[in-house]
């Protein structure tokens, strides 16, 4: 990252463009090391993109504002159910109209849940949110109007571009033979047809949402709002003394997180075309939190990496049956022991660590590398 930020701006833009291009082309490349032999690679990538969205949203709540949310799946469910109801069960809205409504409903539910609970500090919030996630699911189970246990099917799909049979054009996938790479003209993705079997267009949709949320995340984090979140997380009383209305900023973080969670749920529902309460178990809240914590809460690139690992690894090793869950659990325990701040901790933690390390070395009697390091101990 350091080397990257030293480059001139056009080069940086080019590099980011190439990374984005690679990400978009990933399902077409079918790279043998990355591909998932036991499940459709594009479907896995779509799931990864949804986890990335969720992780970015939850990172705002947990990583930036320091609010422990154990019921994040609730907002995800609200987004999914809103889309399902509007496009299929109680209406026939077009998806593109239903998604904005879904995210706004998720956001409002975030405000409704946050307003009474964010005034209390510490662990209470974790308990209340835990309950919230379960309540949403149980309401869905017990309400016929929401489809009950059977769930809702025929959820709206995104609109197609071009002809149903061919799309605007067809993009061939790569085929990796023994030492050769061929264009596979039988296996093509139609641009841009949202069908049942081909998950690639959905992945592109999910990835686009990730890119947009990522850009918004960068803008917000570097603004006054981001700084206020950081101050609130570090020391709430001190933040108030700086003139930060901490409650308002916590509520803003909570509802922004809910917004992104609702968006992820809405896209998920559209891709699955079918949802029922089983899609929104407590387990998912925990997995989302695992993605954020494993990746490094507070660092957007870290949580993206965490989301990728949490969503991708179990699919990559699907062949190992239930052992993969055991291995996954072991991996989490190992990570928690070896990298308690996550794989990519926020820059601040890294800088602080480096400084501590330098100071420790000084204390052990090594020659000071920089001027003034000695006075730092004084």
């Amino acid at each position, binding site marked *: 990252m350091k080397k990257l930020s030293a480059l001139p701006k056009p080069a940086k833009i080019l590099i980011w463009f190439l990374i984005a291009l690679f990400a978009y082309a990933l399902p077409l490349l079918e790279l043998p090391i990355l591909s998932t032999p036991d499940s459709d690679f594009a479907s896995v990538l779509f799931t990864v993109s949804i986890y990335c969205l969720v992780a970015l949203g939850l990172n705002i709540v947990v990583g930036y504002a320091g609010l422990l949310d154990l019921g994040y799946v609730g907002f995800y469910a609200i987004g999914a159910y809103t889309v399902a109801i509007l496009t299929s069960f109680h209406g026939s809205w077009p998806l593109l109209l239903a998604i904005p409504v879904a995210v706004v409903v998720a956001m409002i539910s975030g405000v409704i849940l946050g307003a009474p609970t964010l005034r209390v500090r510490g662990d209470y919030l974790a308990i209340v949110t835990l309950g919230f996630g379960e309540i949403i699911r149980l309401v869905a189970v017990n309400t016929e109007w929401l489809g009950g246990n059977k769930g809702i099917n025929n959820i709206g799909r995104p609109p197609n571009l071009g002809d149903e049979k061919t799309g605007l054009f067809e993009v061939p996938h790569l085929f990796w033979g023994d030492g050769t790479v061929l264009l596979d003209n039988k296996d093509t993705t139609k641009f841009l047809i949202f069908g049942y079997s081909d998950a690639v267009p959905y992945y592109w949709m999910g990835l686009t949402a990730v890119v947009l949320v990522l850009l918004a995340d960068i803008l917000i984090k570097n603004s*006054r709002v981001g*700084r*206020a979140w*950081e*101050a609130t997380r*570090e*020391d709430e*009383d*001190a*933040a*108030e*003394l*700086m*003139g*930060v*209305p*901490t409650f308002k900023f916590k509520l803003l973080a909570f509802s922004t997180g809910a917004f992104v969670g609702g968006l992820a749920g809405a896209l998920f529902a559209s891709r699955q075309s079918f949802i029922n309460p089983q899609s929104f178990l407590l387990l998912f809240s925990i997995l989302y939190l695992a993605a954020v914590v494993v990746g490094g809460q507070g660092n957007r690139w870290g949580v993206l990496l965490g989301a990728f690992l949490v969503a991708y690894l179990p699919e990559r090793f699907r062949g190992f049956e239930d052992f993969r869950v055991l291995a996954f659990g072991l991996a989490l325990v190992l990570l928690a022991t070896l990298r308690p701040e996550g794989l990519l901790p926020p820059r*601040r*933690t890294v*800088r*602080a660590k480096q*400084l*501590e390390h330098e*100071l420790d070395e000084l204390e052990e009697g090594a020659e000071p590398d920089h001027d*003034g390091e000695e006075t*730092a*101990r*004084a």
Partner: protein
Amino acid sequence: MLLEVEGLCVNYGHIEAIRDISFSVPEGTVTTLIGANGAGKTTTLKTISGLRKIRAGSIKFEGKDISAVEPYDRVKLGIGQSPEGRRCFIGMTVRENLEMGAFTRKDRKTAAYRDDLDRVLGLFPRLQERIDQIAGTMSGGEQQMLAMGRALMSRPRLLLLDEPSMGLAPKLIQQIFTIITEINSQGTTVLLVEQNAAQALKRSHDAHILETGEIVRSGKGKDLAVDPAVKAAYLGGDV
């Protein structure tokens, strides 16, 4: 009067932390509250900055009752606080901490803001040296300077300082008190809470002595510093 506290009572649950105290801080002065641990000094400051709720009585700032004003709005009115135990944002750099201090200011791109930053860095040259260092890696004295500088960045009319000398080496304590006098001479009114009574009394215009939540003595700082009873109780006899 810049600040008037009248009949202030504050409770922690059922425990009365402060019972019916009244005092005022004239504009342009250094006023000190001294007292032992648990006398209610910090509670008084926290109540003035709004972190604690009032049970009875009133706090007036520039003649207006601010009892119901939220803490973050009191900063805008001109009350800045350097809290007990410094409470710097330890994950942020010195510069970011100072910027947080100016959170309520809308003029952060103007020369006036840069002048204030220069003024604070002039008062605390050590902060200038450490401007990009993470606050959590600095020594206690440096963090104290940062907490004071941060509070000054909001351009307060009234600066509340809660035990700025706590845990510092004697040489640093001298330095901190010199800076407090300097801040005051630049036009900021200071309300100081201290256990280090000798230094505090010497440098303050007015002083009040708190004991178990009540003011037991008030007077000029210099008078109290030579008062035999005060000397015996707070100055260890012979200072």
